[in-house]
């Protein structure tokens, strides 16, 4: 977004086909962005490609996985031509199991209190700081927040984490799982607080057209940049996510 003084915020160029054009140059550096969507719409692929494109530029990237073991994640990602296992070997892409992190921190309880949350934030930011991570994905923040009982604590957790990561210059994608029912009523997070705290919201979902599901992506909000708010059709290919404007006469389902 260009101000009257001509100031343009520096961008984290995602490298994802079409997304940087939608964002008019990329995600403003240090933003915490919610990538929200129902199952099977490409959230994990989007997150992984975001990291790979950063690693290709020599950036240190980190992926915290809470929904599946890291071994399984890496097995699944090998099908993509854009992924190169040497990025992991070289330490450019660092994958962490949230379960391992919990046990390392002694967080064995079913639910987290304020002290646990602060310990978790410290562990994540320490890793980011030590490795010099500039791109981070947490997949999914929904699974993580299920362990936090109150909305207020979820709000504190996300706000503090986002603020600290931003200070460290890290651009973060928080993957959020929503049901298709919720995505139809403009709710972009499971707990309702994630969307208010995030700097940006990228929604992924399905449009039903005559019995067929077409994937779409829509940037609903992105602080610090003017951006398109249109729906874009998504194709998940071996070379990455591909986007094209969704036909206006066929985008309402």
């Amino acid at each position, binding site marked *: 977004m260009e101000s009257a003084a001509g100031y343009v915020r520096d961008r984290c160029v995602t490298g994802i*086909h079409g997304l940087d054009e939608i964002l008019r140059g990329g995600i403003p550096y240090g933003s915490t962005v919610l990538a929200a969507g129902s199952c099977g719409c490409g959230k994990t692929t989007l997150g992984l490609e975001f990291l790979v494109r950063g690693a290709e530029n020599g950036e240190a990237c980190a992926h915290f996985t809470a929904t599946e073991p890291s071994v399984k994640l890496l097995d699944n990602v090998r099908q993509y031509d854009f992924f190169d296992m040497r990025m992991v070997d070289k330490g450019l892409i660092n994958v962490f199991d949230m379960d391992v992190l919990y046990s390392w921190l002694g967080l064995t309880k079913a639910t987290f209190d304020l002290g646990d949350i602060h310990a978790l934030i410290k562990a994540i930011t320490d890793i980011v700081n030590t490795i010099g991570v500039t791109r981070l994905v947490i997949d999914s923040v929904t699974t993580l927040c299920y362990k936090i009982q109150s909305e207020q604590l979820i709000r504190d957790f996300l706000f503090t984490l986002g603020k600290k990561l931003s200070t460290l210059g890290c651009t973060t994608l928080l993957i959020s799982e929503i049901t298709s029912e919720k995505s139809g009523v403009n709710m972009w997070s499971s707990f309702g607080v994630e969307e208010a705290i995030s700097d940006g919201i990228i929604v992924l979902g399905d449009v039903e*057209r*005559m019995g*067929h599901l*077409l994937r779409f992506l829509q940037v609903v909000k992105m602080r610090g940049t003017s951006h398109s708010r249109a729906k874009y*059709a998504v*194709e998940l*290919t071996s*070379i990455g996510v*591909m*986007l*094209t*404007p*969704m*036909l*206006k*006469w*066929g985008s309402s389902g």
Partner: protein
Amino acid sequence: MIELDQKIAEQLSDVGLNSSMQVRCGTSNSFTVTASILNPLINVFEMGGVYISASRGANEIIEGLESLGIPTGNIQFLDMVSSGILGGTNTEHTNISYIDSPIMLESALLRTMYHFRKKLTERNFVILDSVNALAIYNEERMLAEYLHTFVNTFRQREVLSVIINVPDQTPPGVLANLDLYCTDLIDRGQIVIN
């Protein structure tokens, strides 16, 4: 044996890569016209490209072209027919990929772009076969919008687009838009003898 239309080859030698060509044909000569276009593109101009087949299965098209001495190795086929009729996707051709339905217009565009990003040949074409087949499944306004996007997307990327169409089976609004968007015309509409 089909006799290819040599005048089409002459006409094609005058078009640039950023051209969008509307090809009008009839119900009985559409394959002859399509083969007459592909023959010079492949065998003379040494181009490669993407063939979007919405009128019939890609397998049948490949066999027809090969029988005429038109090699299909440099063509990626996007078959929008076979997947929907279950069982039509069992083929040995590795250059066919399938799109669930002719209503998934954006998927056809993105898959075409995918092949171009993976680098086919130095000079590329995209053939859309055909507008009238897509008109069976898609509403007129949406199809007109799609063709507008299609033509402009490939013109911008210097990919020759060839749009096959049987005019008397295409909605008038779509026809009018095709006339407006396309830069060139090959007219081999069916001749009706009374």
